[in-house]
């Protein structure tokens, strides 16, 4: 598996570089601004964890997941860069949890100081703690609460939203609908339990009520079997019997083994939200507002597949780097970090308003899309919620809730 990943990632690097060179040639005829030449080198590291197949075939993993977003982000940066005398080069590396730190160290030895990481909390923290003093890391995957609180790191900025931001996005919408009696079904894996905590906290925060809870135990086994829907249709309603009156079923299934079975297989006629049904995402290939169609079209031309959360979050991390390089005229990670956390920083991210960073824990503020898989149903934060700083801070850990001190 590791060898295969290595093959794919090196093939991908070749393709990435070839594309960049091609673009350079096509655009050579354009006038450029006189500016100091800057070479911006970024490494994207994706840690691939052993996992079963997803419940839905639509979610089958592709070899270029995340990396295709990196390619697009690099191209976008290169377009502005060519007018400014800046070049952007990105390498992509897929690795295993065991090899992640060694790969990271190899890249720092090669001189890389800008990193976009798609990994879980443990590997991410290992890399952040092993990083040279002048390195800057972007988290494009993990939603772990602790990374935005007691386990925050000064050299780690979070482009991926926290689980709390996603949970708050769903709860705000349900409260806006006045569907405030929620029945929580959560998985039994540690990630599922953490996600359930995020939903409980969110319900408390916005005045919704969790009227009951049930655990759907992960007993292992394959995800898919022929005519498996027959059993699902019989078993799930029974599992969902004898619940207190509720408006909505909230599903907390971070490990993707049961939530997709819930819609229409509940006992009561209640809609499902959370890990299935109405799902909080940072990106959806169906999203069309605020120029999103153009980003989706550009991505599909490049990757021949729809753009997903991890592609968007990697694209966005590279755009943060690109924007900071454009405005500061520097490729120094320290200067880029200061700019990204400063008052001047704003970035257009196809979300209808600028995205910025929270100064107290390095979390990017961003609207969260609520999708039914076919359409964008709504975008949170919702009208009517208030915040003294920006409505975006009504999603996720606000300053007083975060125990992060690394940014002081």
């Amino acid at each position, binding site marked *: 598996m590791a060898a295969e990943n290595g093959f794919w990632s090196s093939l991908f690097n070749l393709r990435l570089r070839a594309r960049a060179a091609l673009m350079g040639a096509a655009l050579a005829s354009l006038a450029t601004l006189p500016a100091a030449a800057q070479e911006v080198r970024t490494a994207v590291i994706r840690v691939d964890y052993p996992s079963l197949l997803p419940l839905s075939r639509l979610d089958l993993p592709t070899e270029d997941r995340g990396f295709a977003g990196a390619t697009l982000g690099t191209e*976008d940066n290169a377009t502005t860069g060519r007018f400014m005398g800046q070049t952007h080069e990105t390498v992509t590396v897929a690795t295993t949890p065991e090899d992640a730190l060694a790969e990271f160290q190899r890249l720092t030895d090669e001189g890389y100081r800008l990193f976009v990481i798609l990994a879980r909390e443990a590997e991410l923290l290992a890399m952040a703690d092993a990083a040279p003093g002048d390195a800057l890391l972007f988290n494009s995957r993990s939603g772990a609460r602790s990374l935005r609180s007691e386990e925050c790191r000064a050299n780690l900025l979070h482009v991926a939203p926290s689980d709390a931001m996603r949970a708050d996005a769903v709860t705000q919408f349900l409260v806006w609908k006045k569907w405030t009696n929620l029945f929580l079904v959560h998985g039994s894996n540690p990630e599922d339990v953490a996600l359930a905590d995020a939903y409980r906290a969110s319900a408390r925060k916005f005045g919704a009520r969790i009227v009951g809870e049930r655990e759907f135990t992960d007993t292992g086994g394959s995800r898919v079997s022929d005519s498996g829907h027959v059993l699902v249709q019989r078993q799930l309603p029974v599992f969902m019997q004898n619940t207190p009156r509720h408006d909505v079923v909230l599903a907390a299934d971070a490990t993707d083994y049961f939530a997709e079975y819930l819609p229409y297989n509940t006992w009561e006629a209640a809609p499902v939200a959370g890990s299935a049904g109405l799902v909080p995402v940072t990106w959806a290939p169906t999203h069309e507002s605020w120029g999103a169609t153009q980003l989706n079209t550009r991505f599909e031309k490049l990757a021949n597949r729809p753009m997903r959360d991890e592609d968007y979050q990697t694209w966005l991390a590279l755009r943060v780097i690109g924007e900071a390089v*454009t405005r500061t005229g520097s490729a120094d990670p320290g200067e880029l970090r200061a700019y990204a956390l400063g008052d001047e920083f704003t*970035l257009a991210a196809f979300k209808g308003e600028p995205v910025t960073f929270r100064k107290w824990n390095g979390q990017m503020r961003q609207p969260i899309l609520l999708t039914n898989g076919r359409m964008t149903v709504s975008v949170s934060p919702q009208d009517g919620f208030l915040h003294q700083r920006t409505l975006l801070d009504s999603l996720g850990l606000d300053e007083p809730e975060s125990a992060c001190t690394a940014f002081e």
Partner: protein
Amino acid sequence: MIRSTLLATAAALAIAATPALANKVFVSNERGNTVTVLDSTTWEVIAEFPAGNRPRGITIAPDGSELYVCASDDNLVRVFDPNTFEELPSLPSGPDPELFVLHPSGNPLFIANEDDNMVTVVDVKTRQVLAEIPVGIEPEGMAISPDARTVINTSETTNMAHFIDAETYQITHNVLVDQRPRYAEFRQDGTKLYVSAEIGGTVSVIDMTAEEPSITKKITFEVPGVQPEWLQPVGVKVTADGSRVFVALGPSNRVAVIDGATDEVIKYLLVGQRVWQLAFTPDEKFLITTNGNSNDVSIIDVAREEVIKSVQVGQQPWGVVVAPD
């Protein structure tokens, strides 16, 4: 002062022996796939006609003979007779045309291809593509200098205003502006260019009198009680004498009135929801705003700087143009 201007206008009209002119106002409805026609004296809707799929940018020939509409999802520019509303042969546009600008002579048409990082130049008489100019990512705003020598394109993801030589179609300068530049508008004496940045929340004022264009000021906006991120500048219009600049501020539902001498905001006018594009009547007595989320247009009395009326149009009005006298 206002009164004497009115008298002078009346005198001019009397000499020309024309009655108080009613101009047709054409509003493109992005979602309704139609163009709504209003009368500029009664402000009543006089017609609504189909205009292709996803009509956005809209403009009219200087002699009023042809109406051009960017039918974005048809990947072409639809052409209509502004009097009979009959459809005439279409123009090629390149993919996903969003906004365009017509040469002051009426030909050619410079079209921004939002999905293809190009500006397409089209001869409106022969209906031939004259050139395709590569620009930044997501080109949108288009303007042409009053001397017709420089075409401006803004690219929304590259965050630049590209200055294009109108003869050679080569880019001569690039000016970095704020996030997501949507619209570019010249002062009629050609000394200044205004470029709005929707997500950046600013309008860059670019000095055109020096050898190289450069930003001399960034206009910012502030309305008490309105979240700053909703102050999203899009459409910009400058009066012929350059004394006033009007800026549509998107989801804040406001139009800013700016002193054209100091480039300071004087006041904000409350209009309909999600205001994007603007157009003057030829006498500059009125400014029409398209309000995409309330399906209406607001009419602003330019001299009094007041909103006098709102009129329901089609679904999600996007662009607006007024027929010449």
